[in-house]
Structures are given as structure tokens and as C-alpha cells.
């Protein structure tokens, strides 16, 4: 591997010193909404939606400012204050605005802001919407802290904030036991990843004496291979937890119990993107360890197939989308694991995925809104006439995710499949297969939801959603359609200095189709074809899930037995261990202590009979005692 060029950020001047406002605005809004109480109920959604949009405006200003600078001065550090000062360790809180973090800021606040606006309509009938918006703002603030930190320890604070916010929001309807359980599950599974993150920070502090990105990047080439491998694997574990990669994927599907805007926020703008960000940001670590990079590629590939498999077997529209998120994040991890050639494309897919996944989740929310919160696709059908805006915007997201030519997913995914083929033919072929499966299950979702016969439940009268919900959909639909065209020629050159890559020599034409892209298109077409053949408008779709004996279908419906695996490998042995420990505690430790007490108690119950109240017997005892003492003394003398 070539030694990476270390980018030294330039100190912030002028307006850049106010960059903390990016985080402070949503954080302050969240605090106000939580502290003011019921008085804020009337205007809470508007304040909640305005906060991320204000941050977006500020972020846009910084972005335009960075665009105007030359490459060497695009990384800006904003020192804030000294946080921990202990002996040789000086940990400063500071922000880093560079090519990578500013893109995340725009994604988080832009897509996040649209989701906030949409939530005004979606949550209009919820009594606790003030709290909902407070949590959403907190989520955005935590995520911004995560991507803006210039230091792994500060990043970790945002990382944990994101975990807390996801817990609060997944379990927002906490009166539903499934939602409460899902929130707890997300929290616990994330703890496993967080352990990796915290140990990684400790290893950094021990090795470099600092956890700042600059120091770590600068020190990485000097560390031993083992340290680099350990750091890489720990960071991968952390990324797996947050980004729902195998083996820590099980929380993501259950997280669908939260309100739909939360799913959109988790899947598109925050949370699951954090893992990809971490891997990309730690490019210096992965550059030093081939094995850790390979592990990232393997995890990404496995997850992209896992997610796609699950997506095929589900009837719940949100779970299909959740499976597709897993799968798409798998693509990003795969690209990030390949190294400098892939980082820019990982972020490219991440950005456009943010557009089309938010679009589709909000579209699914709009469908649910219209059908009394029905999530089973078998009870949809024929919605395209009644919900034209939702249909068109959803279709834009759909075409983007399957990689239809000129839609955003087409460019992003093809780049990744191409670099995957350059890395290894097997990985490339699997990535291509994933694209075909994606086309299959997303087409199935489209057909079951918007086409075919009406299969609505009694009393359902679908209707288009109000303007406050459709306008964000329109924005996101447009972004899904043209995002790829807009970013394709620009993003690699923009990101490469920040992620240690090298800008490609010539920019490919937007109309250029490589061989890989053409083969991928054929695979995608086959996927769509099979789906239309099986679930097309003429087909009769049963109202309940048909029984299946196919092991593939059963595995998919059961989330590939991820829960069963966790239960068998971790939960049951854990329970066994605790029940054994309880037995040791009850019988061993408690037994000894209680036994001693019982023995002394029993003995004293017998001994106290000596106190019989007869003075003369006391006198006898005393005399005998004195006599014995005397005899002992005399015998002692004699001896």
C-alpha cells in the first residue's frame, strides 16, 4: 500500500468558527421542546422542523464556501475547548469540516429536514408529537456531532447519542409491547458494536496518546500489523452494530415498530450510515491492514445478500424496505472495504441511498396513512390511481434502487460492482447477483402495492396524503431521479483528498455503459421479469401468506434465523450461566452465610437456658469458674 498523504486541516476563520451552531440549533430546539412542556404543543412541530432546516441552510453556506476554495484548504478544523486534561492526555473538543463531513451534514440536515416536515403531517394526530419532534431533533444533533467531530472520542459521544435517540424513537409508541421490545433489542445489539468502538478508542489512546483523527492518521503507518488489524476489526465491529451488518443485523428489522418517519430517518439520513462513515473516516487504519479490509468486504458482501434474501420473503412493506437497507448498506461496506478505489463510491451510494430510501419509506408511510396503518402488502393493491403523487415519487425511488439507467442508483451501484470485479471476480459476481435480487423484490413490492386488484380490508378508503407530506416526497423523488446524474462526475474528485484516494484520470461520460454495467442491466431485467411473471397484475395474490415448505422462503421469513442464532449462541448459554451463578450464589455463598447465622442462633437458643434466674446457681458457676482458673494457675506454676 502506498503511504497516505496526510491532510492537515486549516484553522477556521470568520464564519467557520460558528460551525458549532450546526449541532447547537437542533440540540437547543430539542431541549426547548422537552423543557417547555405542554405550552409548546401547538407550535412544537414547526419549531422541530425549522431547526434541521436552519442547520441545512448553514451547512449549505459552508459547502458553497468550500467549493470556492482550492483543494489544500478544504479541510477546516474548528477547535472548541479542552475537554479532558489528564497528565499527558489532552483531549480537545473540536469540529472538522471537510469534503466528507460536509456532505454528511447536507444529507443529515437536508433529508432529515424533509422527514421533519413530512412528520408534521404524519404525526398530526399523535398526542405526544412535541416529544416526537424533540427526539427527532436530538437524533439529528447527535448524528451531526458524530460526523463533525475531529476526534474519535468526541465522535463516540455522538455515536452514543444516536444510539439513545434510536432507542427513544423506535420505542416511541412504548405502550405497544413489540415496540418497547424492539427498542430494547436495538439498544442491546448496538451495545455490542459500541463495545468495539470504545475499545478501539482505548487502543488509540494507548498507542498514539491521542484519539484525534490527525494524530491517528499520522501515527498509523508506524504501528505494528497486529495493532492495525485489531483496530480495524474493532472499528468494523462498531460499524456492524450501527449499520446493521451481519452478524449484528437483527435489530434493524424489528426497528420497523417505530413510526415510519423514524424508519426513514434511521435508514436514510442517520444511524445506519454512521458505520460507513466510520470506515471511510478511518481509511488510514484500513490502509495498514489488508486482513481488516478483507473482513469489511466479506461482511458487506454477506450482508448485501442477506438483506436481499430477507427482502424477498417479507409481506410487511416496511420490513421489505428494511431488508433492502441492509442490502444497500452492504454494498457501501463492500465498496469501503475495497479501499481508496471504493470510498468515494461508498459515499456516493450512501448519499443517493439517503434520497431514494427516505423517499420510499416516506412513500410507504403515505400508503400506511391512507390505509389505516396497514403494513401488509397483501392488503394493498391498485393504489396508483388513488395516490398518484405517492405512486410517482415511489416509482422514482424504485427505479433508483434497482439501478434503472440514468436514475441515481444506476451510477452509484455500477461503480461499486465494477470496483468489486477489479478486486475479485467472486465478490463482483455476488454483488451483481444482489442487484438482480434487489430488482426482484422491489418489483414485487411495487406490483403488490400499486398494481393488481384491490385487496383492501373492510372500511379502508385510500386517499392521497396532505400537501405537507407530499411536498417532501416530491423533493426526494426528484433527488432520487437526478441525484446520480448530478453527482457522478464530481464526487470522486471532491472526496478523494479526504479519503486518501486518487481522482480518476478521465471522467466517464454519463452516457457511457461499461460491459459490467450492461451485464448488470441484464441481470436486473431478469429479476424484474421473474417478479412480473410471479406477481404481475393478472396474478391472483392470496390475502394471507401462503404456506411454504421451501427452506429458502422459510429462512427468509424468519430473518434467516438471525434471532434463533442469537438465542442459541448467546442468549441461552447466557441464561444458563446466570442460572448457574444464581445457584452458586443461593446455595454456596448465601448457604454459608445463612448457615453460620443459623448455627449461632441455634447454639445461643440452647445456651441462654443457663440464665435461669436462680442467683445461687450463678454463684455456683462463678465459684467453679474461679476454682478452675485457680487450678490452672497452680498447675501452670508447677509445670
Amino acid at each position, binding site marked *: 500500500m502506498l503511504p497516505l498523504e496526510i491532510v492537515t486541516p486549516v484553522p477556521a476563520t470568520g464564519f467557520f468558527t460558528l460551525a458549532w451552531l450546526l449541532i447547537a440549533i437542533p440540540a437547543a430546539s430539542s431541549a426547548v421542546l422537552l423543557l417547555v412542556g405542554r405550552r409548546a404543543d401547538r407550535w412544537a412541530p414547526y419549531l422541530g422542523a425549522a431547526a434541521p432546516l436552519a442547520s441545512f441552510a448553514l451547512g449549505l453556506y459552508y459547502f458553497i464556501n468550500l467549493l470556492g476554495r482550492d483543494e489544500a484548504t478544504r479541510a477546516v478544523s474548528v477547535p472548541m475547548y479542552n475537554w479532558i486534561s489528564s497528565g499527558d492526555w489532552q483531549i480537545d473538543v473540536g469540529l472538522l469540516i471537510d469534503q466528507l463531513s460536509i456532505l454528511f451534514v447536507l444529507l443529515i440536515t437536508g433529508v432529515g429536514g424533509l422527514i421533519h416536515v413530512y412528520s408534521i403531517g404524519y404525526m398530526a394526530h399523535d398526542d405526544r408529537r412535541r416529544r416526537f419532534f424533540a427526539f427527532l431533533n436530538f437524533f439529528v444533533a447527535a448524528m451531526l456531532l458524530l460526523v463533525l467531530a475531529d476526534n474519535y472520542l468526541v465522535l463516540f459521544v455522538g455515536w452514543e447519542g444516536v444510539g439513545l435517540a434510536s432507542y427513544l424513537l423506535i420505542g416511541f409508541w412504548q405502550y405497544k409491547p413489540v415496540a418497547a421490545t424492539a427498542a430494547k433489542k436495538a439498544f442491546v445489539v448496538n451495545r455490542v458494536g459500541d463495545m468495539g468502538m470504545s475499545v478501539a478508542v482505548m487502543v488509540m489512546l494507548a498507542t498514539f496518546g491521542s484519539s484525534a483523527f490527525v494524530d491517528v492518521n499520522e501515527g498509523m503507518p508506524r504501528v505494528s500489523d497486529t495493532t492495525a488489524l485489531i483496530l480495524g476489526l474493532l472499528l468494523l465491529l462498531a460499524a456492524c452494530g450501527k449499520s446493521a451488518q451481519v452478524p449484528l443485523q437483527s435489530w434493524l428489522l424489528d426497528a420497523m415498530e417505530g413510526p415510519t418517519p423514524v424508519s426513514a430517518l434511521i435508514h436514510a439520513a442517520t444511524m445506519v450510515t454512521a458505520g460507513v462513515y466510520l470506515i471511510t473516516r478511518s481509511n488510514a487504519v484500513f490502509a495498514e491492514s489488508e486482513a481488516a479490509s478483507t473482513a469489511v468486504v466479506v461482511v458487506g458482501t454477506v450482508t448485501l445478500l442477506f438483506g436481499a434474501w430477507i427482502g424477498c420473503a417479507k409481506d410487511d412493506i416496511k420490513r421489505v424496505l428494511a431488508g433492502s437497507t441492509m442490502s444497500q448498506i452492504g454494498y457501501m461496506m463492500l465498496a469501503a472495504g475495497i479501499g481508496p478505489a471504493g470510498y468515494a463510491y461508498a459515499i456516493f451510494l450512501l448519499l443517493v441511498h439517503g434520497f431514494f430510501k427516505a423517499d420510499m419509506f416516506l412513500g410507504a408511510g403515505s400508503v400506511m396513512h391512507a390505509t389505516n396503518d396497514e403494513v401488509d402488502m397483501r392488503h394493498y393493491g391498485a393504489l396508483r390511481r388513488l395516490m398518484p403523487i405517492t405512486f410517482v415519487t415511489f416509482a422514482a425511488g424504485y427505479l433508483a434502487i434497482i439501478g434503472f439507467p440514468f436514475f441515481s442508483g444506476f451510477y452509484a451501484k455500477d461503480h461499486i460492482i465494477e470496483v468489486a470485479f477489479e478486486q475479485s471476480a467472486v465478490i463482483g459476481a455476488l454483488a451483481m447477483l444482489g442487484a438482480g435480487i434487489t430488482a426482484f423484490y422491489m418489483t414485487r413490492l411495487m406490483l403488490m402495492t400499486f398494481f393488481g386488484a384491490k385487496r383492501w380490508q373492510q372500511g379502508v378508503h385510500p386517499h392521497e396524503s396532505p400537501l405537507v407530506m407530499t411536498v417532501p416526497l416530491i423533493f426526494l423523488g426528484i433527488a432520487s431521479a437526478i441525484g446520480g446524474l448530478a453527482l457522478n462526475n464530481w464526487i470522486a474528485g471532491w472526496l478523494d483528498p479526504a479519503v486518501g484516494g486518487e481522482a480518476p484520470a478521465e471522467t466517464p461520460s454519463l452516457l457511457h455503459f461499461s460491459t459490467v454495467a450492461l451485464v448488470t442491466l441484464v441481470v436486473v431485467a431478469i429479476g424484474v421479469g421473474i417478479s412480473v411473471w410471479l406477481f404481475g397484475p393478472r396474478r391472483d395474490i392470496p390475502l394471507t401468506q401462503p404456506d411454504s415448505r421451501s427452506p429458502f422462503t422459510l429462512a427468509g421469513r424468519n430473518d434467516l434465523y438471525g434471532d434463533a442464532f442469537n438465542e442459541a449462541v448467546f442468549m441461552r448459554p447466557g441464561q444458563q450461566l446466570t442460572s448457574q451463578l444464581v445457584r452458586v450464589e443461593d446455595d454456596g455463598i448465601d448457604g454459608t452465610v445463612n448457615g453460620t447465622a443459623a448455627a449461632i442462633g441455634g447454639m445461643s437458643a440452647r445456651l*441462654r437456658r443457663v440464665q435461669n434466674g436462680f*442467683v445461687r446457681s450463678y*454463684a455456683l458457676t462463678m465459684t467453679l469458674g474461679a476454682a478452675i482458673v485457680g487450678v490452672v494457675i497452680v498447675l501452670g506454676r508447677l509445670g
Partner: protein
Amino acid sequence: MSTTSYIVLSAILFTIGTVGFMIRRNAIVAFMCVELMLNATNLALVAFSKMHGALDGQVAAFFVMVVAAAEVVVGLAIIVTIFRTRRSASVDNANLLKF
């Protein structure tokens, strides 16, 4: 007379007191037995004091007398009170203070 005779007398008196305390039931008699033991001790103290030619033992004897006098005041008062309430001066009847 040698000191031994006094010590022997003291031991005899002490033994009489001890045995009397253990076998007699009347509180007044028991009380007198206690006094007998104290006086036996005093005798021993004075005898040893004489033998060693030091005054320590005699001083201690005075202390014992003072304590015995105080004890008589309190002890007799208790015995009289118990007799008034229980119509008995037997130490075996006053056995309520027990386990």
C-alpha cells in the same frame, strides 16, 4: 503468730461464706455470707500487709469496708422492697430475671 494462721483463718471464713451463699435460700443470710467473704478478704489483705511491712493492703481493706457499707445500704433496701411485694425473702423465689 505467723501470717499463715491468719491466711488459713481467712480461707476458712471465705469458704464458709461461699458455701453459705450457695446453700442458704434466705436473702438476709446470703447477704451476711457475702459480708463474711468480704471480711475474709480484708483479713487476708491486712495479714499480707503486715507480712510485707507495707501499708497498701491496709488501705485496700479500708476501700473494701467502704464498698461493703455502701453495698449494705443498697442491698438491704432491695431485699426489704422485694420482701414487701412478694412476702418472701427467698432468693429462689426472685427468679424472674432470666432467659
